[in-house]
């Protein structure tokens, strides 16, 4: 039997609203006990004085690029980046090559992940074949193979009839459908938020209405079908209001927000650095404020990174030609911890949005430190300040708007299944 004792940390368990200094004992892959003055023979000790001990982070939205684009990332490097960022479970989007629209691809990802990744990896299968937005996928077979949700992320299902059927059919497998909400016609060639910056820079703008119109449509379709709708990467303040209304109406609608949309505005597109290009684009101060308030209130259920690795040479092109997306796993806590530092959210509530809430949305294990819970745990130093250098990180790619930036809040240790898989200063320890 292996034992780990995490001693003297501030234990934050959102599943039971527990927030107190305590010890946490793990035996094999399960949490045994949380309490004061715990002793254990032959236990590996993690000293956590001054640190937070929380359920491992759960990320509902990452792009791990395997199969097909392993030069950007693969399940091994993505899994290492995940645990280095405190994530014990990540859900990978279906826009691989081939697309994850077939149970064989789902199975391939799970097999590779089991061998290669220190983090748990859960595939999200495509909602339509080849992400073409036309014919729905075999959701029952995909769910059986291990898919946890369905999404055409990266693309929008523009045909409302197709979307209606996807939502209706998803009830068969009782899984959430995740939307990438952008009205493609209205977005047109837009690459940055439409507004003051697009006018100054002369780059084609993408208005918030392109997102809001689409979210509004899909909320109506969720009402029509009664299906579980999860809104990916919400970027505008207006979208928060739409989701709030949907929740007040009692619909099964959940939503996520990325660290970059919580922290950055389109002001950083000033130098035309393509590490500032993502879909949806960075918005304005007012959107950031409303997204942060929405996360605090719980209108936005959780933080998801939309970790989207791209090779340096793919990003070193014209702003309009560069692929969308930025890295997110390794910087997530350092970025969102700012909300605790600013007194906007309590540590317990932030941990809920990072672990307990997302785990519930996709019916995943984790998000709890209760006796008997799976020992997926993160130990965090909320006061430690560090400078992020993507070249020193675990992802294969470097496309981060935080390259060279100082962040406050660092992952001290990550445990998956009761094993220490990452420890600051020691790196990734398993696989």
């Amino acid at each position, binding site marked *: 039997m292996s034992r780990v004792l995490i001693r003297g940390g501030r234990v934050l368990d959102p599943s039971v609203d527990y927030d107190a200094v305590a010890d946490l004992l793990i035996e094999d892959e399960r949490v045994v006990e949380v309490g004061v003055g715990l002793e254990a023979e032959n236990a590996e000790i993690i000293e956590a004085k001054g640190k937070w001990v929380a359920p491992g982070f759960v990320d509902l939205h990452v792009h791990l690029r395997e199969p097909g684009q392993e030069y950007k990332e693969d399940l091994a490097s993505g899994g290492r980046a995940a645990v280095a960022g405190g994530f014990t479970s990540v859900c990978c989007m279906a826009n691989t090559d081939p697309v994850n629209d077939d149970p064989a691809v789902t199975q391939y990802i799970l097999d590779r992940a089991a061998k290669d990744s220190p983090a748990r990896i859960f595939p999200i299968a495509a909602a339509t074949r080849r992400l073409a937005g036309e014919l729905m996928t075999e959701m029952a077979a995909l769910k059986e193979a291990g898919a946890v949700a369905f999404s055409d992320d990266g693309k929008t299902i523009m045909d409302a009839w197709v979307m209606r059927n996807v939502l209706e059919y998803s009830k068969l497998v009782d899984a959430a459908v995740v939307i990438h909400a952008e009205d493609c016609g209205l977005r047109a060639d837009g690459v940055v938020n439409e*507004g003051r910056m*697009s006018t100054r*820079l*002369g780059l084609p703008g993408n*208005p918030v209405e392109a997102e809001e119109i689409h979210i509004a449509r899909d909320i109506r379709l969720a009402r029509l079908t009664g299906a579980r709708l999860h809104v990916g990467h919400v970027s505008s303040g207006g979208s928060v209001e739409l989701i709030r209304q949907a929740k007040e109406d009692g619909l099964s609608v959940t939503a996520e927000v990325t660290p970059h949309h919580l922290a950055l505005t389109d002001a950083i597109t000033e130098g035309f650095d393509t590490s500032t290009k993502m879909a949806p684009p960075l918005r304005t101060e007012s959107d950031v404020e409303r997204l942060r308030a929405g996360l605090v209130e719980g209108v936005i259920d959780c933080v998801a990174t939309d970790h989207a690795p791209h090779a340096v*040479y793919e990003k*070193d*092109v014209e702003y309009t030609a560069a692929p969308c997306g930025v890295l997110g796993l390794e910087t997530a806590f350092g970025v969102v911890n700012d909300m605790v530092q600013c007194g906007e959210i309590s540590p317990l509530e932030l941990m809920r949005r990072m672990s307990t809430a997302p785990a519930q949305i996709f019916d995943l294990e984790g998000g709890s430190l209760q006796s008997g819970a799976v020992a997926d745990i993160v130990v965090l130093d909320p006061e430690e300040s560090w400078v992020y250098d993507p070249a020193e990180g675990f992802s294969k790619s470097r496309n981060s708007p935080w390259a060279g930036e100082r962040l406050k809040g660092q992952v001290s240790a990550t445990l998956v299944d009761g094993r220490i898989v990452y420890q600051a200063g020691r790196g990734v320890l398993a696989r």
Partner: protein
Amino acid sequence: MIGQDLLGIESLDRERIELILETAEKMQEIGTRDVKKVPTLRGRTVVNLFFEPSTRTQTSFEIAGKRLAADVVNFSVSSSSLSKAESLLDTAKTLDAMDPDAVIVRHKVAGVPQRIADVLDAPVINAGDGAHEHPTQALLDMLTVYQEKGRIEGLSVAIIGDIAHSRVARSNIYGFTRLGAEVRVAGPPTMLPPQVDVLGVKAYTSLREALDGVDVVMALRIQNERLGGGIFPSVREYSSTFGLDRAKLRFARPDAIVMHPGPVNRGVELSHDLADHRPSVILDQVRNGVALRMALLYLIAGRDFPQDQE
């Protein structure tokens, strides 16, 4: 300014703009000589890196460089093959390894000159990037207005046309407002950029109101690719609402001048008659473009002021 980039007017202070304009006035004399050449930039290499074809601007830079005795090399690249075969920055670095003294960049996407300048040792002059900036056009426009009116401070300038997609509009807005002019923009609502007030101008959808009492009217070229682009219904409707002719020009001051960055779509932005005759100063703009670009090359890639070589 030696060794410095010129990426846009937005980041240029009034002093620098005035220095460039004063230097350009001195350069004009060289263009009137029998032998239009001085040895100022002898032994210097100026590269025209044009990712988007532009005969006029490229030729203007080429003549400007040659009048200063620089070696001017044209490095034309098709941007479509580029994005597949070689990264933009690789092209820039390759070029940099050949040690040019100045690189002139034109690209259809906003921000490319900036990105190239980030990796290049040589100074970069932006010759137009997407809908972002076209600083040399704005400077030659300011020179033209200054010489016509004797001042820029206190003038009213109306820019008419597709403001949203115009780099000429942006650079001129920044330049003229920095020198104390009032700038108005006018066009169909689909051609005005969102939150245009951020540029420091007032927007009009009535040509008559926009022209009321202005000293300078600048018509922009309607880009061919926009003709069928869904942002205005027809050329006929555009020319009847925003195309300039002598009748509409009467809304402006009696001594107002008419400008156009060229090439003119005759009968669309300007009537045939206005395109060729005063008060339009289109050919003066072109002429001043050479002197202005000579001034910039001298200030950025040169050392001493040109001496007579009698």
